[in-house]
């Protein structure tokens, strides 16, 4: 039985070894990324250009972490950066480009077509059901898509069955329990109780599924504040291993209600790397990732003008 599904007893044992007690776990980016080891499977929160845990990816690239096998529902320039920096050589997702505004990602194409990296394609719902199965502690969930397509054909990891109740054809998609999840939220407390506004994507299932969770947050609030709006808490503290306060932690991507994508920076990035997905990517990483002394210095390179304009647009979602 060749399968990537982690046996239940092993999953439970890993979880029982985690310190799930109510304790403060605020730390720096540098400390937080120590929870990621070379070769780990890593689940990335958000989707496309939204609530991407960019600060954590930035730090992992600076750490020169290696051979991460990443997954995300839809991956954008974060996928480019993970491949281009050599941090990851394998990504499971449903869609991989920089964004529809820019067509194909030459970085993805270069890395995949050269055989240097693997992009395993699943349908979007299949990715969701894989995280959900992982979060539920079951080895699979049944779905009714992918059937009959070549997406199914190239994914022998999924299994067709005839339903024991109805005889209908179903596809069982295997649970995905990443070793680590990287998630960016609008606010959480020092324990890791996280509140997410607006689009949730697959972050709740991902947080429950992962064997370790690193959160970055626009701001750390008191536990009292969390308790005043428990409906809005989406990730409970006992899923969380590290909390880092990183304002603009998704830049140049979006964080719902706080800032929209920083499209001038994105445009310039795409123009640069799509011309030369190796050399120009290295130049980009050098300038924006390796050289800045801190995340705030990186934001400074994106520029005050763009950060403020993105914030103005971000907040406007709440305007009438």
């Amino acid at each position, binding site marked *: 039985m060749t399968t990537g599904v982690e046996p239940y007893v092993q999953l439970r044992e890993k979880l029982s070894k985690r310190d799930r007690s109510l304790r403060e776990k605020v730390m720096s980016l540098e400390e937080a990324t120590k929870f990621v080891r070379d070769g780990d499977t890593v689940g990335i929160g958000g989707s496309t*250009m*939204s609530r991407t845990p960019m600060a954590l990816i930035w730090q992992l690239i600076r750490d020169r972490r290696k051979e991460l096998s990443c997954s995300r529902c839809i991956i954008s320039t974060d996928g480019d950066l993970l491949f281009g920096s050599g941090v990851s050589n394998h990504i499971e*997702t449903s869609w991989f480009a920089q964004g529809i505004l820019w067509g194909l990602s030459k970085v993805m194409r270069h890395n995949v077509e050269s055989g240097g990296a693997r992009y395993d394609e699943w349908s979007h719902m299949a990715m969701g059901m894989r995280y959900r199965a992982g979060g539920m502690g079951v080895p699979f969930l049944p779905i009714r*898509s992918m059937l*009959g*397509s070549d997406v199914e054909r190239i994914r022998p990891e999924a299994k067709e069955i005839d339903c024991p109740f109805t005889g209908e054809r179903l596809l069982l998609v295997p649970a995905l329990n990443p070793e680590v999840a990287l998630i960016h939220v609008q606010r959480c407390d020092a324990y890791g109780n996280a509140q997410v506004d607006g*689009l949730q994507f697959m972050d709740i299932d991902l947080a429950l599924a992962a064997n370790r969770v690193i959160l970055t947050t626009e701001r750390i609030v008191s536990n009292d504040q969390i308790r005043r709006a428990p409906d809005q808490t989406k990730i409970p503290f006992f899923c969380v291993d590290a909390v880092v306060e990183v304002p603009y932690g998704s830049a140049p991507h979006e964080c719902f*209600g706080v800032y929209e*994508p920083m499209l001038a920076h994105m445009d310039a990035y795409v123009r640069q790397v799509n011309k030369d997905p190796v050399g120009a990517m290295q130049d980009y990483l050098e300038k924006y990732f390796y050289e800045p002394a801190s995340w705030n210095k990186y934001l400074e390179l994106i520029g005050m003008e763009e950060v403020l304009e993105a914030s103005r647009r971000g907040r406007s979602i709440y305007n009438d």
Partner: protein
Amino acid sequence: MTDTRNYTASEILAVLSSRQLTDGQVVFAGVGIPLLAATLAQRLDCPGLTILFEGGVVGAFVEPGKLPPSTNDQRCTKRANMVLGSADVLLLLQRGYVDVGFMGGAQIDQFGNLNSSFIGDPAHPKTRLPGTGGGNDISSLTNMIVAMKHEKRRFVEQVDFITSPGFIRGGRSRAESGLPMGGMFRVITELAVFGFDDTDRRIKVLALNPGVSREEVQDNTGFDLTFDDQLGTTEPPTEKELATLRMLDPERLFIG
């Protein structure tokens, strides 16, 4: 009414696509032309059109001039009725709450299968395309409208790779593959409007766009086309349609 071609290919694509929608429908729209066309329909004859987006949005009213760069951006939630998880919005398709899926296409074949994954052999592709996103789910689970550019390399006899299933190999092969519901309903291009035969499930031309000949459509298609017995001609975009469309996309992000 206008009878000179005072519109771009993307504009007629958006306008004709929007006309395929009916007031009161629940439509799952992809980014780009589909999002724009669904929003156009909402502003014109379908105020009760409910638009769903993959990011996890039910019942959005996108603001003019603030078109989202993807269906996962906050702009998709403007004046939405409901925000939910992305897997959950896709499950609404599976349960059957959605009337129609509405997507763009990179490559299509005679049975309406779409490819957005690979050009060439998937094991050693000439070009690795972005992939399915929710496309496979949407086209597996509901009735589809596809809006796409008409080029010979995009309209092929058989796609290199079935990313989003149409009628697979035609006939009953879709249902036999485990997809009993949904299937291709319409394909809209700047040249023509296509439907599918009820029995063999092959694509056929239902109507030619204004000023377009049978030959022009055939010449831009990589296989022999069937033309419907009642072949019609589409009405050109009206001034009101074009004006509303341009008001929605003043930066011409998607209308080129």
